[in-house]
């Protein structure tokens, strides 16, 4: 039982990271109806920018300045990328089908992946932001030997929770959030009441960039920043299917479910059929889910004929 709980909690906590990536997808999808395949690449870019800037500053300045400087640099990069994307891709694809936009973001993913590796290098970089890495053992009284937790995962969960809170407040309580929700609801109507569409896109892509930075820093603390982080993006797709494309809570719950389900399946079913099922389990769950419940757990129910 202790082992089961340990696997479950480990899965839930790694699910938090999927949720963070999925959040980036959701905010962009909510505001512009674009499924941004490049979200994983933005995680890579943000991570690389942060790590390299921090390492550069760390040579001359004390630790906390290097962390702050690295974060500032990465934020600046993400905003610039958001601006470039808005300027050179999105505004030129207005009124195209969502499929064209999706394919354009696939192209974008390739561009961001490769250019960021050219600019910042393509090795594995360790992230050091002062989060303790020791494992924590809890519930020793309840189970024999207790339950082993990774403290990085715990921090990730706390930061993710804060991010979600901030995002919910931002979307529900601020004027900008209201404008973004209006754009998500109806582009033309929003424009007719005077909301500048390109500006909202810039905001939303910057927000997605910041979420990517958070995901990159947390994921990087666990496994280092490297190219394979891009495949995170693809793991976020089943999360979206499960949670619904337009729901922030859905992204969180979906991420947790996928993270836990995948680890449990790997440990308890995978050992029976050859292992490695972590690789596709999430997708097949999403596939089955799509058949039964196409709009996801928290998605808006669209009434249309297919």
């Amino acid at each position: 039982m202790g082992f089961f709980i340990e696997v479950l909690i480990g899965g839930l906590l790694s699910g938090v990271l999927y949720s963070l990536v999925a959040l980036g997808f959701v905010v962009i999808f909510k505001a512009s109806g674009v499924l941004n395949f490049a979200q994983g690449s933005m995680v890579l870019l943000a991570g690389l920018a942060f790590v390299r800037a921090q390492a550069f500053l760390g040579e001359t300045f004390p630790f906390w300045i290097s962390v702050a400087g690295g974060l500032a640099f990465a934020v600046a990069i993400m905003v610039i990328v958001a601006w470039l994307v808005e300027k050179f891709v999105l505004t030129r694809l207005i009124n195209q089908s969502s499929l064209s936009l999706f394919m354009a973001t696939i192209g974008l993913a390739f561009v961001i992946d490769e250019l960021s590796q050219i600019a910042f290098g393509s090795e594995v970089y360790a992230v050091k932001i002062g989060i303790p890495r020791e494992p924590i053992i809890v519930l020793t009284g309840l189970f024999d030997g207790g339950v082993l937790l990774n403290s990085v995962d715990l921090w990730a969960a706390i930061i993710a929770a804060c991010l979600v809170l901030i995002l919910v407040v931002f979307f529900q309580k601020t004027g900008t959030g209201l404008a973004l929700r209006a754009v998500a609801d109806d582009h033309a109507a929003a424009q007719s009441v005077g909301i500048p569409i390109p500006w909202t896109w810039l905001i939303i892509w910057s927000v997605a960039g910041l979420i990517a930075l958070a995901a990159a820093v947390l994921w990087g603390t666990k496994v280092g920043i490297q190219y394979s982080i891009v495949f995170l993006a693809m793991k976020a797709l089943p999360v979206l299917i499960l949670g619904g494309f337009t729901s922030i809570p859905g992204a969180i719950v979906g991420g947790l479910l996928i993270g836990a389900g995948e680890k449990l399946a790997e440990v308890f079913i995978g050992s029976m059929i050859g292992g490695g099922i972590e690789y596709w389990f999430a997708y097949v769950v999403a596939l089955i889910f799509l058949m039964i419940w196409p709009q996801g757990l928290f998605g808006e129910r669209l009434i249309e004929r297919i």
Partner: protein
Amino acid sequence: MIYHEAGQFKTSYKQDMAMLPIVQDRWSVVALVTFAVAGLPILLAFGTDAFTSNYLYSAILIPFLILSLASIGLNILVGYCGQISLGTGAFMAIGAYAAYNVAVRLPQVPSILAILCGGIAAAGAGIAFGLPSLRIKGLYLAVTTLAAQFFFDWLFLRVSWFTNGSASGSVTAPAVEILGIKLESGTGKYLFVLAVVVLFSLGLKNLTRGALGRQWMAIRDMDIAAEIIGIRPVYAKLTAFAVSSFTIGVAGALWAFVHLGSWEPLAFSIDRSFNILFMIIVGGLGSILGSFLGTAFIMILPIVLTRVPAALGVPLSTSTISHLEVAVFGILIIFFLIAEPLGLARLWLLAKEKLRIWPFPY
């Protein structure tokens, strides 16, 4: 002037509906095919040494033809029927492994039949993974095809039955034999692949002009309207999945048997899926000709890109060049989607139109 149909009168419906109604078109296609079948091999046999011609066959011509076939297959689904797929690599893998298993387990089966079996297996899998398209569409469908990609990657890597118990997961296909003749030389392989590709592209071109193709396009353009005029979406979508996966499966079997010879599951990874998707975006969605143009473009581009920095005297490391190459692909995709969503095929049409009225502007 050169390209003008003046004086060519169509006196029957048959002529009017012909695949290539203009005489110049017909002759240029005949000339192209003749050149590909006879001219090119003769040119290579006498014009170059054995090493160069072998290189051209095995590194350029054969991969070009097979990938063109795969992109025609994908174009049927994405370009004609409007259902996006990111699982081309998986369907190629199914074709390859099904053909391999038939060829290895039933050695008396002729190679052509084994390759076709690969296509049929891929068509079956295509229908299975196309079933969700009846309930969902667009971006959601992309995820189900991605599921196919990851699932089959795993299946062929981990379940040793498919690789005939090979420990490393890499398998070697038996030699392809056509009517008792073993295909060993580059010329032989090239001609075999060429024959398959020509047959498939003619057949599929015809299919897209017929009732089925029009149903696909109607579904693509507006599914509700299509349904109202009496097209069954279930039938149209599933046939598109089946035909597309069949073609891709045959391409996968050819890729494995004729081009690679021995391969491992990585040969059909998600990179291959994106590669082929890029080919049809650049070439032109909804165009058989575009599939060829796009394949040629995507295959030639890396060769050019690796030469350009050296030619300009800019010293770049190989890793930078390979990163740059992929980045240029990405930029091109975005560029084509913005500037010419119908791709190179559309540019070709425009050029033809210009030639028709040349030297007058309109």
